[in-house]
């Protein structure tokens, strides 16, 4: 048909400011999302920078393999023992010891709680217990630290005296147990999600074969959930390694190289706090060593998190 250029239906619209505004809004939002990436870059950049400066003063190998940690550099350079020693091994073993105690304590409790809540508990029990466990998770760590120093440590020391054990009042055991209590709800809620993600069809299949509930859980649900549970345990471990306040308040300051849970040990995070609170001159090896420790902590927890999140994601996709 013959149609001149004037159409009765206008779908071209006006060339509007509208579109430009929309572009601006979209880019602004993109900018906001990039803050998360900028934060990561900021963390990496600042830690790397200071760590690099630290390794100009202290050898990398001495840091990583040195067995002695005493960062007390003297105020005047002519003082005796002004160099200090920066061997991180006792801090790392201390951190691992306390985290291991925490995980050893929290894993069975967290997992069993999760299994009970996900599979056995009635709706009412779940409605009461879950928020209480969440409450446990919501309590600030400074409160746990206070609890450890006030109740757990004296209790353990007293108990030890009764059976003839010498337990330090800043023992790794006290800090580890308290940290374990903090981690229980983390493990239980992550595992609860994982167990709930196991499809109902698997349960039905097992019941259809005449299996009891416990058999179904042990033989079908747990094996199916194992990768997800492993992921949540890794996340919990990363949390334990990075935890600060509990160990600052309940663990020791002296860097002992020991595997004895009754002795006092110190951790990476305790040393960071100790080095950076109080008077500090910024370019000293002592201050810079805190950043090197922070860098180390960041890398370790980052690796754990990436692996853990990958496992959990992969696991969840499998049942989507």
């Amino acid at each position, binding site marked *: *048909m013959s*149609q001149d250029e004037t*159409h009765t239906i206008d*779908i*071209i*619209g006006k060339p509007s400011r509208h579109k430009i505004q929309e572009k601006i809004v979209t880019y602004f939002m993109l900018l906001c999302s990039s803050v998360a990436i900028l934060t990561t870059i900021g963390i990496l950049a600042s830690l790397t920078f200071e760590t690099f400066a630290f390794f100009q003063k202290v050898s990398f190998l001495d840091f990583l393999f040195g067995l002695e940690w005493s960062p007390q550099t003297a105020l005047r350079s002519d003082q005796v023992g002004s160099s200090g020693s920066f061997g991180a091994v006792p801090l790392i073993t201390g951190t691992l010891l306390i985290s291991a105690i925490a995980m050893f304590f929290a894993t069975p409790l967290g997992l069993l709680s999760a299994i009970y809540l996900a599979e056995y508990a009635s709706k009412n029990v779940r409605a009461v217990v879950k928020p209480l466990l969440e409450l446990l998770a919501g309590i600030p760590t400074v409160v746990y630290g206070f609890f450890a120093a006030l109740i757990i440590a004296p209790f353990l020391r007293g108990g030890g005296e009764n059976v003839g054990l010498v337990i330090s009042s800043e023992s790794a055991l006290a800090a580890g147990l308290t940290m374990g209590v903090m981690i229980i709800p983390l493990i239980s809620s992550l595992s609860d999600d994982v167990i709930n993600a196991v499809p109902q069809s698997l349960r039905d299949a097992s019941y259809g074969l005449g299996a009891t509930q416990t058999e179904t859980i042990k033989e079908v649900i747990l094996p199916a959930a194992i990768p997800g549970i492993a992921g949540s345990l890794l996340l919990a471990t990363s949390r334990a390694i990075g935890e600060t306040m509990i160990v600052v308040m309940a663990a020791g300051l002296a860097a002992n190289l020991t595997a004895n849970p009754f002795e006092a040990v110190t951790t990476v995070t305790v040393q960071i706090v100790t080095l950076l609170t109080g008077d500090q001159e910024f370019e000293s090896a002592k201050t810079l060593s805190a950043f090197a420790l922070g860098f180390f902590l960041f890398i370790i927890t980052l690796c754990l998190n990436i692996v853990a999140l990958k496992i959990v994601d992969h696991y969840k996709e499998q049942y989507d």
Partner: protein
Amino acid sequence: MNSVVMPNELGTTDYQTELIAGKSIIQARDVDVFYGDKQALFGMELDIYENSVTSLIGPSGCGKSTLLRCFNRMNDVISTCRVTGSIELDSQDIHAPEVDVVALRQKVGMVFQKPNPFPKSIYDNIAYGPRIHNMTPSKVELDEVVEKSLKRAGLWEEAKDRLDKPGTGLSGGQQQRLCIARAIAVEPKVILMDEPCSALDPIATAKIEELIDELRQRFTIIIVTHSMQQAARISQHTAFFHMGYLVEFGETGDIFSAPKDERTQNYITGRIG
């Protein structure tokens, strides 16, 4: 069955059948639609005639909803969806770069399967479209548009005392008429309806059908429906789709009384579906 009496415009039909009278407002030519690698529509050729109701029927997954959503480029929202070929509205290619989808969707409105009023007041539901398109500079005019749209959608009597109440509080049928009122408030030329009655009871359905027949005076309506009775009752033209192909298109009376294709015959007699 309605016999078609259309204002006979000059010979605008260049395709398929000389029997159909009326001015063609949309022409789809050689339209293919893909979702990722999967092709959903094959070489679609179809004309939509002004001020008439065109039904798109066919079994589930036949591509009728996909085609409907091509007409106002709702498929743009799906990132994997790709449309080739040409669709012209009033002799303008709707995929042309200078076309503003926003303006297109104002001219080609849509009513969805499930009533989806905004969780706002009835008034705001209707007023939203005119507001974003800057159609009504004053509050008085906006009030008029709201009233007119509700009247046209046959909802005014039921809604006039509760304009400030949430639209979600209406019954299902009323909600769907509210959605129709919302669509016509922006004064579209074409209204696309995607199974508008499938979530409604028979009485509400009858009301909507009655409404569609009235709206035809003013708008061109394309409706996807699962109900052949509904297609027969309300439409002047019917297109039958099967597995991504347009099998048959013609006047509704002809399609239902004398289908030319065997598949159409089988479908309307209930052998495939």
